[in-house]
C-alpha cells in the first residue's frame, strides 16, 4: 500500500506538487495523467526514492522511499522516460543485475524480449531508442517486483510495439503487483489502466476506478447533440459527449474525453469523486 500525505515539492521557487494526498492500493494498474509540467515525473521519482520530499511524507509498506533501503528497492522498479544505453549486451545486463531483485526471472525476461522481437544478444548502446525502451520494459517486468513505476513507457515505441507492450503488461504482471504508469498517450493504455489519477498543477483532480467513473459519468457516443453535456467532441467516427450519469447507465470510459472534462470542470468533478 502506498500512502502519500500532504506531499510538497518545488524546484527552487517553482512549486510543482502541493499538499498531494492519496492512497494507492495493491494489485492495480494506475494511470497517472496530467498536462505537461504538473509533476507526474516528479511524483514518480519521489515514490521510488530518487528525490526527497520537501514537505509531507510517502509511506510504502512502512518504508520511506528516500532511505533507499535494499529491502525496499528490491520490491520496486522505476522505469524512467529516458533510459540508459548501457555498454553491455541486454542478456549480460540482465544476468549481471537481475540477481539483485529476488524474484527476477531470466526466462520471463527472454520471453518478453521475444514478444517485443528484441535481440537479447545485442549491445544496449547500439540499440535504437525503441529497442532500448523495450529492453528496459522487459527487465522491469521480469523483476517481478511489488511496485513498478513507469514514466511514459510507450514513448518511442512503434505501433506494433505499443500493442506488444499492452500484451506484456497484462500477461506478465503478477496479480499483487501495483503499476503506476504516467502517460500522455492515453489511447495506448486505455484498456489496461484502472484506476485513473489525474493530476493538476499542485492538486489531485481525480483518483477513481473506471467503474466509479462510469457510475458517475456517462460517455455518449451517439451523433445527437445533448444539452447539458459537460464535454463534447467531434471525432471521425461520430461524437463523444460526457454527461453526469443520472440514470445509472453503463458506458465505456473514453479517457481523453474524461481528461478534458475534468480539466473543464475541476471543482465539479473533484466534488463528485471526493471520498
Amino acid at each position, binding site marked *: 500500500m502506498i500512502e502519500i500525505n500532504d506531499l510538497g515539492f518545488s524546484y527552487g521557487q517553482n512549486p510543482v506538487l502541493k499538499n498531494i494526498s492519496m492512497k494507492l492500493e495493491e494489485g492495480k494498474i494506475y494511470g497517472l495523467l496530467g498536462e505537461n509540467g504538473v509533476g507526474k515525473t516528479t511524483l514518480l521519482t519521489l515514490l521510488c526514492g530518487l528525490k526527497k520530499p520537501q514537505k509531507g511524507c510517502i509511506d510504502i509498506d512502512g518504508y520511506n522511499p528516500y532511505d533507499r533501503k535494499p529491502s525496499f*528497492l528490491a520490491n520496486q522498479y522505476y522505469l*524512467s522516460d529516458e533510459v540508459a544505453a548501457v555498454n*553491455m549486451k541486454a542478456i549480460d545486463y540482465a544476468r549481471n543485475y537481475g540477481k539483485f531483485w529476488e524474484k527476477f526471472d531470466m526466462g520471463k525476461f527472454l520471453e518478453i524480449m521475444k514478444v517485443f522481437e528484441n535481440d537479447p544478444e545485442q549491445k544496449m548502446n547500439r540499440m535504437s531508442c525503441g529497442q532500448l525502451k523495450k529492453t528496459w520494459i522487459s527487465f522491469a517486468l521480469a523483476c517481478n517486483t511489488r511496485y513498478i513505476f513507469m514514466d511514459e513507457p510507450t514513448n518511442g515505441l512503434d505501433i506494433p510495439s505499443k500493442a506488444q507492450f499492452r500484451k506484456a503488461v497484462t500477461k506478465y504482471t503478477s496479480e499483487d503487483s501495483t503499476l503506476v504508469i504516467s502517460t500522455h498517450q492515453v489511447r495506448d493504455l486505455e484498456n489496461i489502466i484502472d484506476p485513473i489519477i489525474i493530476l493538476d498543477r499542485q492538486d489531485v483532480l481525480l483518483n477513481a476506478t473506471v467503474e466509479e467513473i462510469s457510475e458517475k459519468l456517462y460517455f455518449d457516443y451517439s451523433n445527437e447533440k445533448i444539452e447539458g453535456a459537460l464535454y463534447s467532441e467531434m471525432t471521425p467516427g461520430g461524437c463523444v459527449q460526457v454527461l453526469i450519469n443520472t440514470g445509472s447507465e453503463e458506458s465505456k470510459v473514453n479517457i481523453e474525453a474524461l481528461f478534458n472534462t475534468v480539466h473543464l470542470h475541476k471543482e465539479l468533478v473533484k466534488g463528485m469523486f471526493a471520498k
Partner: protein
Amino acid sequence: MKDIFNIRRFGKYFVSDLGSAAANFGLSLLLLSSAGVIVYLLMGFFSLITSGTWDGSGMAIRCATLAISYVVLMISMPPKCYGHLTDKRSGSTWLMIPASTLEKYLSMVLITILVIPAIFFGVYCGLDAILCAIDPNCGDSFFTILGTIPSLLDEIPEIAVAEFVTDMMRPYSFIDDHIYGILVFLLGAICFKNNKSAKTILCLIGLSMGVSMIVSPVVLHSMVSVAGSLEEISDPSAIFNSPLFNNLKVFDTVSDLVLMTGLLVAVYFRVRTLKH
C-alpha cells in the same frame, strides 16, 4: 543492519560493479597498461628507420611512460567508471539497484583505489619484465628496481640532509598520494555533470593556491625563527636538522590522513545524497 551491510549482497554487487567497470574502462585500461610496450615498439621502429639499428626505450623513457600512464589512469578512470552517476538516465538506474549506499560506496572505493590500479601496475610491470627479458638494452625491469629500493635508501642518509627527504622516497609514501589522487578525481566525477576532470583540476589549482597562501607565510615565519634571519635560510642544514622539519613530517602525515578521511566522507555523502 541487513539493510546497511550484507556481505553476500556486497559480494554480488562488487562482482557486478566490476563487470560494469570492465565494460566502461576495460579497453582504456588495456591500452594504458600496454603503454610501455607501445612506446618501446614505436621508439624501436623509429631508430630502425633513422639509424638502421633496433634501439627501444631506455630506463628514463620507461619511467616517464609509467608515470604519464599512471597520471592518465588517475585522471580518466574515476569519470569513466562512475561519471555516469550524475547522468539522469544511468544515475537513476544505478541508484535503484537494491544494494545499500555503504555497499555501493565500498565497492566504488575498492575498485578505483585498489583493483584497477593493481591490475594496471601488475600488467604494466609484467609486460615490462617480459620486455627486459627479451631486450637486455632496456636495463632492469620495474620488479627488479622495486626490490633494490630499500638498499638504495640505506645509502641515502649519507647524502641527504634530513630523514624527511628520505622518507618521501620510500615506496609506502606513494600510497597516500595515490589514494588522495584517485579520491579527488572520484569526487569530481560524481559531483560535476560535465568536463569532470578539467573542473577537478581547476578546483585543485584553486585550492592549492589558497592553501599555499595560508601555509607559506607560516612556514617562512617558522624558518626565520629557526635560522635567525632571512639571509641564513640559504643554509639548509640549520633548517633540515631543526625540530621544524621533524614537525613537518608529522604535519604531512596528519594532513594526509585528514585529507583522505575528508575525501572518503565527502564521496560517501555525495553517493548518499544523489538525487535525480
